């Protein structure tokens, strides 16, 4: 009733190919952005901003990057944490070694370094795929874990092994309060989501998807496997690297390699699976789900009037994650994003289901 698209005529190819072809969608996104940029900073407590919204935004960005590789190009990666770490440590080095380095430039350069490492570890994908590739990306994970722990140069010879950044500012505006951090991340996420959405709609995105669906057929119709796979690795690790740099700089402030351990890689993979493989929207759903579920699980026993120990709560969390992964793979391999679009289909016909 409210979600009707009849009467909305497209009279040009441009209009037909826009990201949100239905007027209600455009309006909804506009409202969402307004809420995110104006209402949330005014109305949300600092705790939510710092502990939930900022991590959610950064993890969404990382999941977005991973989704390009796994969901769109079909190259499974278990080394996302490694590329996040490369982004974070590279950005840190640019920041401390070059005087007057602008924050945004060092974040983007961090992403660029992650791109290089990502392409390097993506090279095996030209000869192998599937689970063999998963092992190759695990190698990246273990190698960077070790390198940032043991090679002093990367941490600027800090004695404790952890690095920290302080006094962040963009064009003279300090990034210190939770609201500023939130808005800073939000801008990054919105820009990158738009870029990613356009990339996957373009020729290169269709090449990735062809590669994912059937690589031999894709090669036959003239898609270069080397180019398609390496660009997917490059774009994916760039976004993941920037997300890693944001995670270190904005969310944590001070960090050590454990912040980007293999658990982080698995967590991001889960986000992508639960949210929806091959969906930009899904990355956000997945991140929201995985950030909110532990909070919910911690609160739930309180609401029901009994208490459980923290150990049990964390075990329950892993159990539920595990069960959900299997559940989603069986029941809805396209994740929450597919549920969302099913909902929209239903809404289109509502209230007359025929």
């Amino acid at each position, binding site marked *: 009733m409210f979600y009707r698209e009849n009467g909305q005529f497209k009279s040009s190819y441009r209009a037909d190919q826009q990201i949100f072809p239905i007027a209600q969608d455009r309006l909804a996104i506009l409202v969402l952005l307004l809420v995110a940029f104006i209402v949330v900073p005014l109305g949300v407590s600092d705790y939510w901003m710092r502990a939930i919204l900022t991590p959610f935004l950064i993890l969404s960005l990382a999941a977005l990057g991973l989704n390009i590789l796994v969901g769109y190009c079909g190259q*499974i990666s278990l080394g996302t944490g490694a590329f996040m770490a490369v982004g974070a440590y590279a950005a840190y080095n640019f920041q401390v070694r070059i005087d007057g380095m602008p924050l945004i430039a060092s974040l983007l350069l961090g992403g660029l370094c992650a791109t290089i490492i990502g392409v390097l570890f993506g090279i095996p994908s030209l000869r192998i795929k599937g689970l063999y590739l998963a092992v190759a990306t695990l190698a990246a994970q273990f190698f960077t874990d*070790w390198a940032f722990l043991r*090679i002093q140069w990367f941490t600027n010879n800090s004695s404790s092994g952890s690095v920290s950044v302080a006094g962040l500012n963009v064009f003279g505006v300090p990034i210190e309060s939770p609201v500023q951090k939130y808005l800073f991340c939000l801008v990054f996420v919105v820009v990158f989501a738009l870029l990613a959405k356009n990339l996957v709609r373009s020729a290169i995105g269709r090449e990735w998807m062809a590669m994912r669906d059937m690589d031999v057929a894709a090669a036959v119709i003239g898609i270069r496997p080397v180019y398609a796979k390496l660009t997917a690795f490059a774009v994916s690790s760039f976004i993941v690297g920037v997300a890693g740099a944001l995670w270190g700089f904005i969310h944590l402030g001070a960090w050590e390699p454990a912040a980007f351990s293999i658990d982080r890689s698995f967590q991001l993979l889960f986000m992508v699976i639960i949210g929806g493989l091959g969906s930009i929207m899904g990355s956000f759903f997945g991140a929201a789900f995985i950030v909110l579920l532990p909070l919910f699980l911690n609160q739930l026993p309180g609401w029901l009037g009994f208490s459980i120990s923290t*150990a049990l709560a964390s*075990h329950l969390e892993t159990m539920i994650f595990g069960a959900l*992964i299997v559940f989603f793979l069986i029941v809805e391999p396209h994740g929450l994003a597919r549920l969302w679009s099913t909902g929209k289909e239903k809404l289109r016909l509502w209230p007359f289901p025929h």
Partner: protein
Amino acid sequence: MGFFLETLFGGLMVGMLYSLIAIGFVLIYKASGVFNFAQGAMVLFAALAMARFAEWFPQWFGFESQILANILAFVAAMGVMVIVAWLIERLALSKLVNQEGITLLMATLGIAYFLDGVGQTIFGNDIYKIDVGMPKEPLMVLQDTFQGGLLLSQEDLIAALVAAGLVVVLAIFFQKTATGRALRAVADDHQAAQSIGIPLKRIWVIVWSVAGFSALVAGIIWGSKLGVQFSLSLVALKALPVVILGGLTSIPGAIIGGLLIGVGEKLSEIYLGPMLGGGIEIWFAYVLALVFLLVRPQGLFGEKIIDRV
């Protein structure tokens, strides 16, 4: 020289333990084409069950004998692993038939998380010990040949013997029994196997039970060496490069791969580590496997049929 040999033997022994876990991977891959990421979680689960049952049974049934407790715990843990196998087949795998390898891989990742959570909820998350009476004192050999002799751990020797025994049993099972032949048939082609009347579901339960059995054996040996705790499930990540190196479908490959990686790890740590800042054990196995993948993607003894790009 004595030190070198000691390192070498140490590496061989650790490698044997990796092989024990790697065999579990190979079994499931060989018989169902699923790369089972949950093998580590199964090792932890089985070891937890074994450790806790051995502790609980004497209390519940009021007897003292450690040996009886161990035997009962072994049987009970094996029973639990069969139930786990059945549940995995029933709840996850049977619904994912005909899916791509990647989907199955991610499903086993989910199973791994689930098993980790369940195991620690039921059996607790402290460090437990398994005491099956393995001798702890190291063995001195070749005292005449080298100064100081060679120190060998008896536990490790026993582990090596157990692994060898396991391989022999499994080889006989796969080659000589009707069930073993059925398993290999299913591995080759699900549909063809089904069409000549091999019950796919039962085969899967059997395969996962056998993998559960090998996880239990690996868990007991690792557990009595290091204690049963969460990090046990991470040891399986070490077994991943082992299977890649040895070939995914080959049990001898798992053994040789394990030995190569065990030895390579120890020697590189001792002789290369100081130059690179130490701790290179963590990634050495992976980088070795990675380099190997580029040269010979099917592994040392793997079958040549492989998803080559």
